[in-house]
């Protein structure tokens, strides 16, 4: 029995079906309180977002009337829908580009397919190690000279290829047994086929992580969208929220918390959707 089955159908669980509730209960008993205590700050956020008179105080939020006033104000505010749409468009583009390039480049680097692989790998990691506060101005200069400022490209291109994602994939591929690929080559498959049919499906878990983390970083990104884009019509959500809720000396807590809660939902959705793929059970019966 030497067939290696690669599964690329989502959600095919090679593990046994989940145990009955009784088996899970033990886990709930000790994980439950931990989870509850970790989520307390979100109770704060939610309470303040539902209160129009809290002034940022939890006690005042729950002792006063609760309602959806802040949320109504949020979605009634002129441009919030536009900000949401911009964020969604940019994040989707960045995620797609990230996944594609990280898969490709991470694989190539891990399998040493280009000269100077060490240099590139080191270069990737090195750029992560310099704080972006310093890189910001030269990056802005590049964008200005290429006339990319104040456009969707400014929000997408610099982040389309992300060092962190590439690094993730490279580490992961290094851990994959090379025998699979070598066997395929012996069988006469081209490199391209090997990449597409064998390696790519195996990369599902790490690509899911790449997708999640690319979406997350980009969705909440504040500094670069702030400085690369001037126009209101291109503005993304975090910048828009800050503009609408913060003045020089005070914060509109209700509005900001409502906005932040609403902004968290898409990321949650993306996470829930992709996290199953992390568990897509590969190498269930791998043998050589």
């Amino acid at each position: 029995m030497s067939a290696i089955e690669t599964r690329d159908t989502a959600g095919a669980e090679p593990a046994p079906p989940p145990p009955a509730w009784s088996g899970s209960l033990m886990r709930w008993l000790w994980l439950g309180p931990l989870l509850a205590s970790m989520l307390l700050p979100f109770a704060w956020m939610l309470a303040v977002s539902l209160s129009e008179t809290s002034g940022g105080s939890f006690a005042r939020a729950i002792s006063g009337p609760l309602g959806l006033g802040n949320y109504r104000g949020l979605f009634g505010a002129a441009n919030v829908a536009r900000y949401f749409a911009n964020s969604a468009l940019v994040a989707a583009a960045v995620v797609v580009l990230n996944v594609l390039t990280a898969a490709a480049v991470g694989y190539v680097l891990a399998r040493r397919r280009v000269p100077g692989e060490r240099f590139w790998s080191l270069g990737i990691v090195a750029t992560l190690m310099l704080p972006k506060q310093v890189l910001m101005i030269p990056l802005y200069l590049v964008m200005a000279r290429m006339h990319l400022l104040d456009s969707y490209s400014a929000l997408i291109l610099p982040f389309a290829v992300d060092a962190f994602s590439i690094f993730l994939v490279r580490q992961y591929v290094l851990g994959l047994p090379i025998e699979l690929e070598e066997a395929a080559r012996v069988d006469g498959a081209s490199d391209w086929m090997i990449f597409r049919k064998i390696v790519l499906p195996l990369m599902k878990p790490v690509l899911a992580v790449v997708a999640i983390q690319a979406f997350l970083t980009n969705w909440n990104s504040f500094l670069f969208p702030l400085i690369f884009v001037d126009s209101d019509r291109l503005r993304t959500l975090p910048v828009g929220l800050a503009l609408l809720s913060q003045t020089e000396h005070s914060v509109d807590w209700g509005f900001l918390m409502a906005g932040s809660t609403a902004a968290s939902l898409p990321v949650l959705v993306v996470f829930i959707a992709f996290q199953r793929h992390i568990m897509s059970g590969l190498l269930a019966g791998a043998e050589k």
Partner: protein
Amino acid sequence: MNITSPGVPGNKPLLPRRPRPTLRALLALLLAVPLLFSLACGKKGGAAQEIVFWQFWPAEVIDPLLRNFEKEHPGTTVRMEQLTWQSGLEKITAAMASGNVPDLCELGSTWMPRMLHADALSDWSAGIADLKPQLRGWEICSIGDATYGVPWVLGTRALFYNKTLFAKAGLDSTKPPETWEELHAAADRIHKLGGGIRGFGAQAGERYVLFKKFMPFAWGNGGTILSDDLTRSTFDSKENTDALAYYLELAKAGVLDRQDVLDREFKEGRLGLSISGAWLFKSIPKDAPGLRYGVALVPAPDRDRGSHASFAGGEMLVSFRGSKQKQAALELARFLVRPENALALAQSAKSVQPATIGADTSAYYREHPEEQLMIRQFATAYPTPNHPAWVEMEAAIEDEVEQALYGKKTPAQAVADASRKLDELVGKK
């Protein structure tokens, strides 16, 4: 060994084929799309005449003013971009580095000294000469006789007090404290009410804030920071030491915390007295509509000594050396500082007042005595020295005052150390 590709039934071995172009094409397409976008949505070139204006106030306040300007100047449009308070300076800095600067820009008084001395702003001395007698705050945007901007709106700090707590402590709520002694006495009595009630809200170490809350006492006592020609420090003086000692005493009859916490405590009725700014006029009706409070000038050391000094800051309108439409920007600036326009902004924002001299006589301020008081306070307010290293100097003073607040140094030591640091910085350009 067979490799079964999913979706391909049976054991058909894979034949070598030319790499399929699909993925490559897809990649190329994906990279091309945003580039196409950029061509479609990038910066649009020349409308008839377009003035790019960067400022910090909400669109609904500024847009009406800009539309009026456009009506008066047919063929001209204003493209307004709103900056965030927290990070606006980063954006302006990046723009300056690349030469991609707006035509007209709002700059806060804290950043003016460095900008002025970096020779980054355009000279407006001729263009605003006729406005000189009409506005106040010119020292913030001038070096010597040359002027590089125009004052738009101004801000200061005053004494806020809780009338309900005054009454509870047996004090006359129509007579706010006017001298240091009265202030301390009032703070003490309110503080003794207990039950979570505190007397005076003393500002803890906080960048760009502590200076504005402490210095009013130093200035009021006759203290100074630098000599008039900005060549040496005059900070080490008895007046400043006494002021700091007084501030420490005052902190004992109250609580030490950051501005937003002090503001919140005041709004929730647990703080009797606090030095704060006009933004409270906007947030109190919203967060604490039932609060009975009053505003007064910062107390002077004594009835016959010192002054009701405070901090003088504001927002200036400037144009950069690299701006493309300098003349049009100047016209827009002149438009915005017209009494009625500055008033419109101040009325809506409440956290600032117009730089127009005589604004306090307008109907709006006669109906809003607390906000009017801010304008009165401005008459005895001190601007910060216009030295290029001002930001470092302010930080040095704040650091030393903070040390004294935490009991690490005596007032005399703190003031002396600060003065020494100022002397080191004075030579910097």
